[in-house]
């Protein structure tokens, strides 16, 4: 997936982006970081074609993405579930778009719940689940659509640290297991530790209107530990990009 020379402004005239260029390669976990309010959520909405750019293009396999598609699936910054559906029905909602027979839908939804560690909780309503469980349901719903690109907006932000850590450890393996058609994950976060723990590539968004001020590849071997000195070094480096006003591209 690729973004070319993208400009965007909101209807009230506020210019959020100027000249955004980024490339998210196949098999990579990509993170977008930036200070609060810089436009990270907006950028994800542009990638998913929920918003239309003023200028420039979003390309998937070289073809422009013009409207939202199940191939590019979004996990929202707020945890979104449908309170009138059980966990399984919530997930099935995105399987149904593929027009499969009923038992196949059930099978896929159950499997998706299993992948996020919710086996046996199929019949619970969101109200009966904790925040972490609900977020897993939301992730399972996105995965069950079998997207090529997964967009995640602060997926761990509303979870307590313990739950977040657990989900973080699972998520990389869930995402890139061999029988998933998923090609690329693009995650927005302002938690740098989380970003270094998970990503292969980090884009740093800063300024107003915002641009990509740096691209950093992280090649620390997995599993990564915050106690590793290389981890710390990386943390300092990312931190400096976020605090400096103007940074040369790497």
């Amino acid at each position: 997936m690729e973004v070319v020379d993208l400009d965007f402004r909101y209807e009230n005239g506020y210019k959020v982006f100027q000249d955004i260029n980024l490339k998210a390669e196949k098999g990579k976990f990509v993170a977008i970081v930036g200070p609060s309010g810089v436009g990270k959520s907006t950028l994800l909405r542009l990638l998913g074609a929920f918003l239309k750019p003023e200028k420039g293009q979003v390309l998937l396999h070289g073809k422009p993405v013009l409207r939202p598609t199940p191939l590019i699936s979004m996990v929202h910054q707020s945890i979104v579930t449908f309170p009138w559906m059980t966990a399984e029905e919530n997930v099935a909602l995105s399987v149904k778009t593929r027009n499969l027979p009923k038992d196949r839908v059930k099978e896929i939804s159950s499997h998706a719940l299993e992948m996020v560690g919710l086996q046996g909780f199929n019949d619970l309503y969101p109200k009966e689940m904790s925040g972490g469980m609900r977020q897993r349901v939301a992730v399972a719903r996105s995965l069950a659509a079998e997207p090529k690109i997964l967009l995640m907006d602060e997926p761990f932000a509303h979870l307590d640290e313990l739950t977040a850590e657990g989900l973080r450890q699972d998520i990389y393996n869930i995402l890139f297991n061999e029988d998933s058609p998923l090609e690329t994950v693009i995650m927005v976060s302002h938690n740098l530790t989380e970003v270094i723990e998970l990503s292969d590539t980090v884009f740093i968004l800063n300024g107003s209107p915002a641009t990509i001020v740096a691209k950093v590849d992280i090649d620390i071997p997995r599993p990564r530990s915050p106690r590793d000195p290389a981890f710390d070094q990386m943390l300092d480096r990312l931190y400096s990009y976020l605090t400096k006003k103007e940074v040369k591209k790497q």
Partner: protein
Amino acid sequence: MIPGAGVLLATSSPGTINGIPFLTITLAVLATSIRVLALILLSIISGWLLAYGAIKSKIFENVFISLIEIFESVPVITFFPVVLIIFVNRIGGELGVELAADFLVFTAVVWNIWMGEYQAFKTVPNEMVEVANNYDYGFLDRMSMIYIPFSIPRIAANLFPSVSDGFFYITVSEVFSIGLTTYATFGIGTEISALLAESNYYGILTAFIIMGLVIVVIILGLRSFSERAVARYTVDTDMPIMRRGKPRIRQTARLSAVASLNTLGKLAKYNRERRPQKDPEELFSTNPRNGKGNIIIGIIALAILVYIVYSAVELIMSVSASEWGYLFSKTPYLLYGLLLDYIRVLSITAVSLVLALTLGYYFATRRRVEKFGIPIIQTISAYPVPAYFPFIFLGIYPFVDSIFGPYTEESLVLLLGFLATFYYVFYGFWMGVKAMPAEYNEIMRNLDMGFFRKMRYVILPSTFPYLIAGITSTVNSAWGGLEIGEYWPNIAGGKTLQVHAGLMKTIDLATSSGNIALAAWGSFLFAMIVAVYSIIFTRKMMDLAKKKYVAEEGIYSV
């Protein structure tokens, strides 16, 4: 001839040009508008006092809320034959007629407003009440600094349906016949009937235009008022607000329920998660001022109750045995009429619902259509159907007759009912769609869902509480429409609109032939059955809606 285009003709009454009494029409429109607006104001002010009484005294609260619930679920218009007679006979004269008209409009507008104010008072944040207790505020300070400002957004949300309801009944309330006598009070309803009797069609057209202008002005005024009210009086915080316990009732059925679930955006946050709280005012029940207030209000409530029971008993005692025999013998026929009326109401509701779903969805998803469409629909809905229906009747009668033959009048009555009610379910649904979390919209787009799938899995469930509220209002207004339409003598062109059978028709006929006992008995049967039905059905649905279908709970965040 176009008014004001050419020659000025001098006629008998001042302000008359080309036979069109401009001055009279304008004054009549103003009289009617002032009547409606003044009664709304009266509802608001009385509602503040009653709501304050309700939060101060448990006994009063129980009586007050039970009465509102009953009156809200019964289309009060059906009592009017009887109530009007009381006003005209007991008070009599111009004053009696005027009061009868006022009473009718008042009962059309008041319930929404009272309920909204009660709910607002009941949900004033704990912290604010604590401040009031802390500084030992008196009644006036509490009202002016806390309760009244807090109730303003809720009142604003209830004003539109109330204005529509108020205007709806003007033609029937300003002019009505009992037996052979026709009573009239000054207003546009009376004026239109007079012009109609003279076949002064340009005059009527003028009346419609002037009334349309005034309604547009009122609607625009209300819109800007409610926008400002929400911006100014809505407490601006994302902190969860502690509340003074649940309102005693589950959820009122009418549009006030829509307002209380989530209207005008920001109101939403008051309705998240309500935990039963210890009532801070109760902590101070040793406070002598509160104690005395409680007792006085309790005594007043009790007195009202005793009076109501006494009048009812007196009325029943005054009916002779032979009359009871007659009434009982008529009962099966009345019930048959009620059954027919239920079928009519259901058909009207079903059609309104289908149209509301498609049109409401179309509006809510197209910003530009919505921007112009909603004010237009609000204006049209405030425009009283009974005022213009005779012209629709005249215009389409031959056409409808050629299609429906013997069912012509039946279908015209259904059309009248539809015009009177469609707005409520439409507006309810539209608000529901607007209140749906933006994320739901994105998920529907993301999953590339088709219209029916969206409706079934996301839109209908998320708008369910709003739909129920809208449908309940629709059902109630449909009864009002039938009351007017099932027997409408001399509607236009010398014709009388009437259905073959129906309870509303029987009541109307009994009233106009002076058979008050039968009219009262019919109203009573109707009230009992409809009240029981709507209390049971509506409550079930509202409970279900609140338990399961609150879309706001689907978002876990900020």
